[in-house]
């Protein structure tokens, strides 16, 4: 597997408990790791620095969508051919990365989206979370016209050209839906790949609350109706 130009991007906000183990896990795949610390109040950035990976720090907390833009700009400026998004709370596993990026290395697609709902996927998501994620799926299908099995999975991979051409404006978690809109707008070739998502008490406490998806949905509808 060619890992020379594969960059892993990790957005982190107050993740001192998990970030060290997450970086160690990712280092088994590549040394090219960029952590964007979104103005954490804890030792997240220091722990990441000590691991010897690239660390950028937002001086104001701007949200995951904003961190993704910073990490993408950095990885692209360092010659990344493939950029992998990886969560900082330990719910993703680096052993999924090779199969995630394989379709990109083969040149078959421009974007690969991780899915926890394909037949080979594994997840221990609660029933409520699964229902909310399925609602999100239908929401995304209705507005973007792209039917996915898992529209809000944080594990994804992009080719250099795709990462460069995608334009995100959402700073917060609504970026995930905007990303799917961009795939349609730019007519990018995409594929879903099964990944393992392991929810822990820690990741549940850090992740988006199911109710937040409602406010994200309202914001997206408002923007689509009035801002085009």
């Amino acid at each position: 597997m060619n890992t020379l130009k594969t960059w892993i991007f990790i957005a982190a906000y107050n993740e001192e408990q998990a970030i060290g183990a997450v970086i160690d896990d990712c280092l088994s795949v590549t040394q090219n790791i960029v952590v964007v610390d979104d103005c954490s109040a804890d030792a997240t950035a220091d722990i990441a620095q000590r691991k010897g990976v690239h660390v950028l720090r937002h001086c104001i907390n701007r949200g995951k969508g904003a961190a993704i833009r910073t990490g993408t700009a950095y990885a692209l400026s360092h010659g990344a051919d493939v950029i992998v998004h990886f969560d900082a709370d330990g719910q993703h596993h680096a052993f999924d990365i090779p199969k995630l990026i394989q379709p990109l290395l083969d040149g078959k697609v421009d974007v690969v989206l991780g899915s926890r709902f394909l037949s080979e996927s594994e997840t221990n998501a609660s029933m409520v979370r699964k229902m909310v994620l399925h609602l999100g799926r239908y929401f995304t299908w209705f507005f973007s016209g792209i039917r996915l099995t898992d529209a809000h999975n944080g594990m994804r991979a992009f080719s250099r050209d795709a990462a460069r051409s995608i334009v995100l404006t959402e700073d917060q978690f609504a970026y995930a839906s905007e990303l799917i809109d961009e795939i349609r707008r730019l007519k990018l070739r995409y594929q879903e790949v099964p990944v393992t998502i392991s929810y822990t008490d820690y990741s549940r406490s850090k992740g988006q609350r199911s109710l937040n998806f409602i406010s994200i949905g309202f914001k997206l509808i408002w923007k689509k109706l009035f801002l085009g």
Partner: protein
Amino acid sequence: MTIQILITLVSVIIIGKALGKLHKHEVHIQTLTVWMLFWVAVIALVWQPNLTDYLAHFLQVTRGADAVFYLSLIGIFYLLFRIFIRLERNDQDITTLVREIALLKNEKKDIHS
């Protein structure tokens, strides 16, 4: 009578403040003109409420007060919409700045190391 005097006083103060901003070049002349016309209209309507009847007739609603109410509602929603767009733009500008600072700081760190 008290409410009429009160609204007139507030309107005059707002017009005075707007003129002060023009003097300090803090506001554009077009914006000031629209703003002043609005408050002059408020004063006129406070002292001559019958003027709203023309508006009501034009909009085909029964009372002048209703016409003012409907138009105010539309105006407030439009303003909210404009504020929302402005906030979005400001948010994006702040994010761009934060990103540039993060990238620049890292660049400096790379140079020094």
